[in-house]
């Protein structure tokens, strides 16, 4: 019996395990499918965005991983120590060894404040905060509750980060929350990014940049932080941004075992073919979700679209046939913009996010790149959709291909 081993039981690992199981059932082929994760706590990460504003607690965002894995998928709890690709084995920290025929790395990416000098120092969780972890989001909530005014800096350390729109959403929601509490006039809000604008893709960048401006948020671009120095961000080229409260998104790195096993690049992401998601260096080893180096957003929607094609490809590969269902980089992201509205971005490797309509059965078409209430409600509904539909890997009636659109024409070079 073939053994498929999946490292990581988060969004991507869960979807892929369930998808593969369905697919093999159709083929009347029965494999062992095993998922390894360090604990049985599946966190709905997009919900972390609302924790600093008191709209949710981390406990409301966590459910048992086991519950969302189809019967027939085995869950092993343990910390992955390393992969021995030569022998086809995975070593856990407690000494257990798991052999595999095919391996899927689905261990995600996580914030690493230790990578920036001064960031995780004595001001960590005092003046320097983040919201990408449950503890961080709770600590930030406490800090914001006591906020009376001063300088808040929202900061992206280095790209790529998972959910690249999250720091923008945080800024919009923060602006909204401060206004409602009458604290906005006494708060100077600054958005600091290593990019040359609010977002990477030109049309979305201009649209989102305009939204920051409209809210009186100052934007500092092309800022690559060198260190956090007491109450200042200092860039590599010696520019400074002072703050009273820093809300940063630290460098995101893939799991350490990826680097230890020689599977990773300089961000500990697994280099894969962008179409098939198979490791360039190790045939039979795949990566999905945030753990890959594919040039699209690191987002739950990406994991979903990848899982769509992955199961078919794995079966083809196993049968010695070419893998023909190529992933096209499709991603879509809702952007909460405050005041009960949200935007929707939809794009792929070669498709720019542009204004238009996005077809969604039942809920109806959504507006792309425009702030609407319908988008906000659709985003609010995604948590239920996530637990009840998406994780099961059942087909969902939304387009899985990236949109075909003409590339955007904008000016300005370097």
């Amino acid at each position, binding site marked *: 019996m073939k053994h498929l081993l999946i490292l990581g039981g988060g969004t991507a690992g869960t979807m892929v395990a369930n998808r593969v199981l369905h697919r093999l059932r159709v083929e009347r082929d029965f494999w062992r499918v095993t998922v390894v994760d360090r604990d049985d706590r599946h966190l709905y990460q997009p919900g972390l965005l609302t924790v600093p504003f008191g709209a949710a607690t981390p406990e409301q965002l966590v459910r048992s991983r086991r519950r969302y894995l189809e019967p027939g998928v085995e869950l092993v709890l343990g910390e992955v120590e390393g992969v021995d690709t030569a022998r086809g084995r995975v070593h856990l920290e407690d000494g257990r060894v798991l052999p595999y025929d095919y391996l899927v790395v689905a261990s995600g990416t996580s914030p690493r404040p230790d990578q920036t000098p001064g960031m995780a120092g004595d001001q960590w969780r005092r003046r320097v905060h983040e919201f990408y972890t449950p503890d961080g989001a709770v600590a930030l909530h406490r800090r914001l509750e006591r906020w009376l005014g001063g300088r808040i800096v929202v900061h992206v350390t280095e790209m790529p980060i998972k959910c690249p729109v999250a720091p923008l959403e945080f800024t919009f929601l923060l602006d909204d929350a401060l206004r409602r509490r009458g604290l906005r006039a006494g708060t100077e809000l600054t958005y600091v990014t290593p990019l040359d604008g609010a977002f990477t893709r030109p049309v979305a960048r201009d649209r989102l940049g305009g939204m920051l401006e409209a809210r009186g948020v100052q934007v500092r671009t092309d800022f690559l932080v060198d260190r956090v120095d007491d109450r200042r961000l200092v860039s590599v080229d010696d520019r400074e941004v002072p703050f009273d409260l820093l809300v940063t998104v630290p460098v995101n790195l893939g799991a350490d075992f990826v680097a230890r096993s020689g599977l990773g690049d300089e961000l500990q992401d697994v280099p894969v073919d962008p179409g098939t998601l198979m490791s360039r260096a190790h045939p039979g080893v795949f990566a999905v979700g945030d753990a890959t180096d594919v040039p699209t957003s690191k987002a739950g929607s990406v994991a979903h679209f990848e899982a769509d094609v992955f199961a078919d490809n794995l079966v083809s590969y196993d049968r010695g046939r070419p893998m023909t269902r190529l992933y096209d980089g499709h991603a879509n992201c809702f952007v909460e913009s405050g005041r009960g509205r949200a935007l929707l971005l939809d794009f792929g490797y070669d498709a720019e996010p542009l204004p238009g309509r996005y077809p969604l059965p039942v809920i109806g078409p959504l507006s792309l790149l425009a702030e609407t209430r319908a988008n906000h409600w659709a985003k609010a509904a995604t948590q239920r959709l996530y637990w009840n539909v998406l994780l099961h890997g059942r087909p969902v009636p939304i387009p899985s291909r990236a949109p075909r659109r003409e*590339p955007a024409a904008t000016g300005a*070079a370097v």
Partner: protein
Amino acid sequence: MPVVQIRERAVHVDDEGFLSRPEEWDEDLARALAEQIGITLTERHWEVLRFLRADYADRGQTPTTRRVDVVGGVPVKEQFALFPRKPGRKMAYVAGLPKPHGCV
């Protein structure tokens, strides 16, 4: 895909001016591109450009500043000195590669 004349040569560029056909690049063109953004190429610039070209040929993606540091051996701080303000974009521009994609 727009075509522009650089030193009497027609090259294909994207809407932001980055070469869209890396094979149209050569060292003369690099000097012209560098000049357009106010950079005079030194030997150290060439080392960076050669790394970018080789890495792109190998992986099909424009390397990020982190990759030029960790894999190419040129510290980020030095990249800022060589290609001021926007090293990631400027390095790609002069090396005739697509705008860095790693920052989606």
